[in-house]
């Protein structure tokens, strides 16, 4: 037995009260942990979905000559000497950075100027599977190319050149077949023809060469600057252009969702604090007599404060443990129900648990500070209603 005996006895004696307080606090913490975990994961998958609206990093060779632009990419003047990047090495270098978990898609491209019916047109060699991931707005009339020699024509290119499904386009030494036409996208894609990268490389005899690569990076866990920095270390002879505005917009949307969710958890916690303060105040008034006895026995005001605060501390610590564990288990379950489980990166973190318990303990002690102070300031004769 020591100074903590009294608070422990009171917690045990008033099991219902203790239970209610722990339950409300646990609920508050649980919702913060749960909503935070879920919103992080949902934010992650939300970002992955938003990635469909385009790449946010472009990697291209260093160049000093005049520029012709395509899709925000500056390639060397096609008429003069064009610099290339090696496809396989570039792609594998991007995938080998430390933050490679954040690399969602790498879409390498080779640009070729050809003449069809004496009209110039740009042919873009792409890996269709990758390209479709960053261009979910593509809608193909006809069919997507299922063979290596299939191409897709942009809407304006098709109109201008009179192309339709089944037409044959000779490129270099090979014949390509139009498998479909893109619906207008409102981008420069409308003016171009898209062919399979490797077929185009073979046709124009530029094996393993690309002009540039679009990269879609997920920025939920890190700033885009880190990703750019890591890529540039792996690929020293390239220029890397991060489209900050796109990234920032995406992050802002996700952060709004997270702030909303944390705000809600905060309100629940605030309610819990208020309840604790009310219960404690009632407890202090109900135990005036006890306080009087303790004061008469020489307990200092500080000791009385400790006795009451310790009760709150235990409630807070207990709720912290239960709330964190509950939030951790609950978010896993919830994500399973929302079938977002595949993307979940929820890990049990001892440090987080410790920080949560400490924070909630401090919070609960603060919440009960006023009643505890009131108890500490009671004089023995105030405490005995009438002697």
């Amino acid at each position, binding site marked *: *037995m020591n100074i903590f005996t009294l608070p422990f006895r009171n917690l045990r004696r008033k099991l219902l009260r203790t239970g209610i307080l722990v339950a409300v606090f646990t609920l508050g913490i649980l919702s913060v942990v749960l909503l935070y975990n879920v919103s992080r994961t949902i934010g992650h998958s939300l970002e992955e979905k938003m990635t469909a609206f385009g790449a946010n990093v472009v990697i291209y060779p260093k160049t000093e000559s005049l520029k012709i632009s395509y899709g925000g990419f500056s390639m060397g003047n096609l008429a003069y000497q064009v610099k290339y990047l090696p496809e396989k090495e570039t792609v594998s270098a991007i995938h080998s950075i430390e933050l490679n978990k954040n690399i969602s898609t790498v879409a390498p491209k080779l640009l070729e100027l050809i003449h069809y019916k004496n009209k110039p047109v740009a042919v873009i060699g792409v890996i269709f599977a990758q390209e479709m991931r960053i261009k979910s707005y593509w809608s193909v009339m006809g069919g997507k190319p299922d063979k290596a020699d299939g191409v897709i024509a942009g809407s304006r290119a098709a109109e201008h050149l009179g192309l339709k499904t089944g037409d044959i386009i000779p490129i270099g030494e090979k014949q390509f077949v139009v498998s479909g036409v893109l619906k207008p996208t409102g981008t420069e894609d409308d003016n171009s023809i898209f062919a399979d990268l490797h077929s185009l490389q073979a046709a124009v005899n530029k094996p393993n060469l690309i002009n540039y690569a679009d990269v879609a990076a997920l920025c939920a866990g890190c700033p885009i600057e880190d990703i750019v920095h890591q890529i540039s270390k792996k690929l020293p002879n390239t220029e890397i252009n991060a489209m900050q505005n796109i990234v920032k917009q995406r992050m802002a949307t996700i952060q709004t969702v997270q702030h909303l969710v944390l705000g809600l958890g905060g309100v629940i916690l605030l309610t819990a604090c208020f309840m604790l303060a009310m219960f404690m105040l009632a407890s202090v008034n109900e135990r005036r007599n006890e306080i009087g*006895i303790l004061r008469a026995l020489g307990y200092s005001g500080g000791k009385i404060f400790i006795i009451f605060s310790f009760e709150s501390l235990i409630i807070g610590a207990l709720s912290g443990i239960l709330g964190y564990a509950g939030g951790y288990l609950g978010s896993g379950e919830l994500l399973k129900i929302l079938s977002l489980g595949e993307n979940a990166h929820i890990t049990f973190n001892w440090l987080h648990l410790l920080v949560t318990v400490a924070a909630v303990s401090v919070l609960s002690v603060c919440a009960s500070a006023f009643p505890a102070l009131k108890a500490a300031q009671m004089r023995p004769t105030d405490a005995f209603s009438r002697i």
Partner: protein
Amino acid sequence: MLNLKDIHKTYTADGVSAKVLKGVSIDVSEGEFVSIVGKSGSGKSTMMNIMSTLLEPDDGSILFKGRELTKASSAEINSVRRNDISVIFQAYHLFPYLTATENVLLPFMQGFAPIGKALREEAFEVLSRVGLSGKENRLPGKLSGGEQQRVAIARALIKKPAVLFADEPTGSLDSKTGNAIIDLLKELNATGLAVVMVTHSPEYAKAGHTIVSMEDGLVSGIEKNAG
């Protein structure tokens, strides 16, 4: 040992002030038994609370073992309450959810160090001294009024105080049980413990070496008991 001089106290409640003590002086020597008698409302409990440091006087001096308590810090007052004096009341003021032994050990539950075996054994011993052997682990609700007052006395004794203050300790008890408590107080006094007791019973008051009569906030008489 304890000398109160010219104590004044005025209560103010709801804007009305009442002069309850108008210059009371009482002395208690080492090992003395002092009884305080007087009509209801004469200020006995108020005086008792001031003597036992539970209440501060508006004016006057309290000298305890040469120390002026009206000028003492709250830490010093707490130390006096912890070590030198004990109080018991008409309403026994036990913790209903602590056993007899735990109630007796309350004065030692102020620290972070757990209470050791020696102190527990001492609590048992004090309980047997007040006649409660075999009832050490009962809750107050399972004890009679007289037994509860004995637990309160045991709690007062365990710190080996110099003075025991008792405000109508028999007030809630029948005469037979009351007599036994008075006998117990006399017994304890015989071992050297000074006792200050407020009582309505002239019979019980005779237990004191000195009988102080109070009337309307003043001492109206001091009688030395020859016995």
